[in-house]
C-alpha cells in the first residue's frame, strides 16, 4: 500500500525511479478505468448485446473496474506487507456479498410468498 515509503531515505536516483514507477502505475490505472467506464456506458445503451444479458455485462465491467482501482489506486498487491490487507479485503467481500445476496434472496422469497395486496386488504377488513 505504500511502495514509496522509503523514497525519502533512498538516494535521489532511487526516489526518481520510484516516482516514475508510481506515475506509470497511476496512468495504467486511469487508462483501464476510463476504458471500462466507457465500455459500461456503451453497454448500457447499445442494442448489440442481447438485452437480458446487459446487466450481467455491466456487473462484470463494474467488478473489473473495482479490481483496477484496488490494484492501481489503492495499491493492494501480493507483496508481503499487504497480506493482512488482502485477508481483510477477502473478509469484507464475504460480508458484503452475504448482506447483498442474502437480502435479495430473503426479500424475493417473502415477496413470492406474500398475498397480493388487494386480497390482503380484504382479509384485514
Amino acid at each position: 500500500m505504500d511502495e514509496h515509503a522509503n523514497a525519502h531515505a533512498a538516494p535521489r536516483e532511487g526516489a526518481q525511479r520510484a516516482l516514475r514507477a508510481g506515475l506509470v502505475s497511476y496512468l495504467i490505472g486511469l487508462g483501464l478505468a476510463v476504458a471500462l467506464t466507457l465500455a459500461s456506458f456503451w453497454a448500457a445503451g447499445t442494442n448489440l448485446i442481447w438485452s437480458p444479458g446487459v446487466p450481467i455485462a455491466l456487473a462484470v465491467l463494474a467488478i473489473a473496474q473495482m479490481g483496477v482501482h484496488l490494484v492501481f489506486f489503492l495499491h493492494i498487491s501480493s507483496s508481503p506487507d499487504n497480506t493482512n490487507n488482502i485477508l481483510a479485503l477477502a473478509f469484507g467481500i464475504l460480508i458484503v456479498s452475504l448482506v447483498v445476496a442474502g437480502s435479495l434472496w430473503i426479500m424475493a422469497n417473502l415477496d413470492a410468498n406474500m398475498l397480493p395486496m388487494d386480497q390482503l386488504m380484504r382479509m384485514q377488513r
Partner: protein
Amino acid sequence: MTETTADLFDPGADETGGGQAGPASRAIIVSYGFWIFLLSDFVLFSGLFASYAVLSHRTAGGPGGRQIFDLSRVFLETACLLASSFCCGLMSLAVEAGRARATYAGAAVTFVLGAAFLALEISEFAGLVARGDGPSRSAFLSAFFTLVGTHGLHVTCGLVWLVVMMAQVASLGFRPKVVRRLRCFALFWHALDIVWVAIFTVVYLIGAR
C-alpha cells in the same frame, strides 16, 4: 513443512513477512487500520445497496429510474470523480517526493473536481425535489436518496478533510504524522471512487434501462 524449535521461537523467519525486519512499520500499521475502517464503510454501503436493490421497483405510482435518470449527467459525474481520484494519486506521489508546491497543485485539482462532482449531484437532487420527486415520494426514491446521498456525504467529508490536510502541510510540513494522514486520505478518496463505480452501475445504468 517441518517445524523446528527455531521456527517456533522465530515464527516467519523464513517467510517474506516482517519476520526478520521486526514489527511492521508505523506507516503499514496505520494504513492497515484505515483499510479496516474502509472495509467497514463498504459493509455500510452494502446494506444501502441491498435496500436499494430490494426497493428499486417499488415506485408507488411515482417515477421510475428510466424517467428521472439523466445518463449524460451521470457520465460527467463519473468523469469528475475518476479524474479527481487520479489527481489524488498524483498528489500522493508529490507527497512521497516531499514536493510541497506539487502537493498543493494536486490537492487543488482534486478538490475542484470533487466539488464539481458534488455540485452535479446536488443539482440533480434539487431538480428531483423541485419536481415533487423527493425522498418521501416512494420507497424507490427513499432508497435512492439514501444510497447516493450517503456517498455524497462521504465526498463532502473528504473535501473537508483535504482542506484540513493542506492546512496541516502548510503549518507542519511533511512530518511523518502528516504524511501518514495524507496516505489515509488518498485511500479514502480512491475507496469513494470504488463505491461510485458500484452506484453508477447498479443505480443509474441498470436502473435507467
